């Protein structure tokens, strides 16, 4: 790990000023940043510790019915907040399917959406990686790329965004509140993460020094409370990143789908909102036929970026199943294995 200066501001203004220096990075839970620093992948010259900023720690309902979640709220606290989980069950389920209990206790809302890719060449400073060092190449293109992107990738970078939390958030039209030296601005989560194009090193729309202060869920997001699920396919039962995942949310009235949301995880450098699929579901009769059609549309543009063509069919199936689960309804209590493709029955052994 490189040496760095450590500063601990006590106000937002101080934090933003402290991070204006080139080479500065914000420290929240540290569960991604310290990992990257230990490997020499991130080499900040100054750490601006934001964990003492009380204004970032709140969850509040605003007058317009939206919910504002501070950037420092810990992943575990948000997922176990009963009112939150009852209103946005797919978000709670996604949070609880991510990482481990210890990591969720430390990980923050802001840190989660800002987490970097898990591409193993990005993590290995001996490998060529355009995301880490623009112009060096991409060793994943001809390397281990089973877990890489099938949507929105470019020859410059085929990495995926690893967050579970972001998938239902983008489906629910979440908005990111950003503070910078020029004041506050709002960006939808859908626009927040960038596709790689020619500039994979620019992962989000944040300008250097800008701070995520909160994530907002608009009032309309609560309409899906009774029919929203997250489904995450992993290579082991727990404590693993998604191979592919899907968040699905429905409003069904009079035997027809009145509102539909669908987003995919593990398929692109950003949480992937499937708008064409949503449009096709509107007015349709709920059921496999409609879901299969929607899933086909969601993956219509998908292309393997290597040895990962299997992910396209897998993503279709996960999308169909997530939609079916959403139709069946949000369970009264989250399953023992949140978002798991195993054990739908509480308490049953998944391998029995």
């Amino acid at each position, binding site marked *: 790990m490189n040496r760095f200066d450590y500063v601990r501001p006590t106000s937002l203004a101080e934090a933003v000023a402290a991070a204006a220096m080139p080479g500065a990075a914000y420290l929240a839970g540290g569960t991604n940043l310290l990992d990257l620093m230990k490997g020499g992948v991130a080499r900040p010259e100054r750490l601006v510790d934001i*964990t003492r900023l009380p204004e970032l720690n709140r969850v509040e309902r605003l007058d317009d019915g939206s919910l504002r979640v501070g950037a420092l709220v810990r992943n575990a606290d948000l997922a176990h907040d009963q009112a939150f989980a009852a209103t946005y069950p797919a978000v709670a389920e996604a949070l609880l399917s991510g990482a481990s209990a210890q990591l969720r206790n430390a990980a923050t809302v802001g840190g989660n959406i800002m987490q970097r890719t898990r591409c193993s060449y990005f993590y290995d400073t001996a490998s060529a990686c355009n995301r880490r060092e623009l112009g060096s190449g991409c060793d994943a293109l001809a390397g281990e790329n089973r877990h890489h992107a099938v949507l929105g990738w470019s020859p410059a970078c085929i990495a995926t965004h690893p967050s579970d939390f972001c998938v239902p958030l983008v489906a629910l039209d979440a908005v990111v509140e950003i503070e910078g030296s020029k004041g506050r601005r709002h960006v939808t989560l859908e626009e927040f993460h960038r596709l790689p194009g020619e500039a994979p090193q620019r992962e989000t729309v944040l300008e250097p020094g800008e701070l995520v202060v909160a994530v907002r869920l608009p009032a309309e997001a609560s309409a899906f409370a009774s029919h929203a699920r997250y489904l995450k396919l992993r290579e082991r039962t727990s*404590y693993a990143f998604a191979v592919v995942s899907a968040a699905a949310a429905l409003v069904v009235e009079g035997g027809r789908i009145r509102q539909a949301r669908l987003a995919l995880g593990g398929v692109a450098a950003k949480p992937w909102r499937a708008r064409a699929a949503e449009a096709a579901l509107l007015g349709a009769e709920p059921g496999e036929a409609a879901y299969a059609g929607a899933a086909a549309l969601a993956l219509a543009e998908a292309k393997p970026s290597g040895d990962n063509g299997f992910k396209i069919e897998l993503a279709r199936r996960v999308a169909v199943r997530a939609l079916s689960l959403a139709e069946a309804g949000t369970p009264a209590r989250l399953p023992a294995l949140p978002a798991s493709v195993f054990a739908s029955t509480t308490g049953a052994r998944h391998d029995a």
Partner: protein
Amino acid sequence: MSLSISLTINGEQRDVELDDPRVTLLDLLRERLDLTGTKKGCDRGQCGACTVLVDGRRVNSCLALAASQDGAEILTIEGLAQGETLHPVQAAFIAHDGFQCGFCTPGQIMSAVGLIGEGQAGDDPERIREAMSGNLCRCAAYGGIVEAVLEAQRTIAAGNGADTRRDAA
């Protein structure tokens, strides 16, 4: 650059001078405060061997910057027993053979103490397995670990930890 921080570690207040801000909570405990009960497995958040409680919450001390914990209350495996009397989770791990080589055990036990405090798993073994998935055991003592957590939870709920502790000792 030198930083001074103050921590309460296992009930005792400690003022610590950090000559280097890079020190993790894990390295501070093991290498500077001689509390080597907390283990370093992967040093990258992937195994749980370094689990301690910070302000009552279980976290991976290998990914916690020491400087950022200023003012916190830390509980490590060394602070769990009351003199010669084992904590109910420690006693249950012995009673149920919740380990073999013992390397992961301090982390497993601290994680289990955290889990019981969270109160989310109840007596459902599948929920306990899921909530303990951040602690790997290369000896695969998982069966005993789940039984130990279940028993410790019952003991603590019944408020008769002392009896069990004596039986197991």
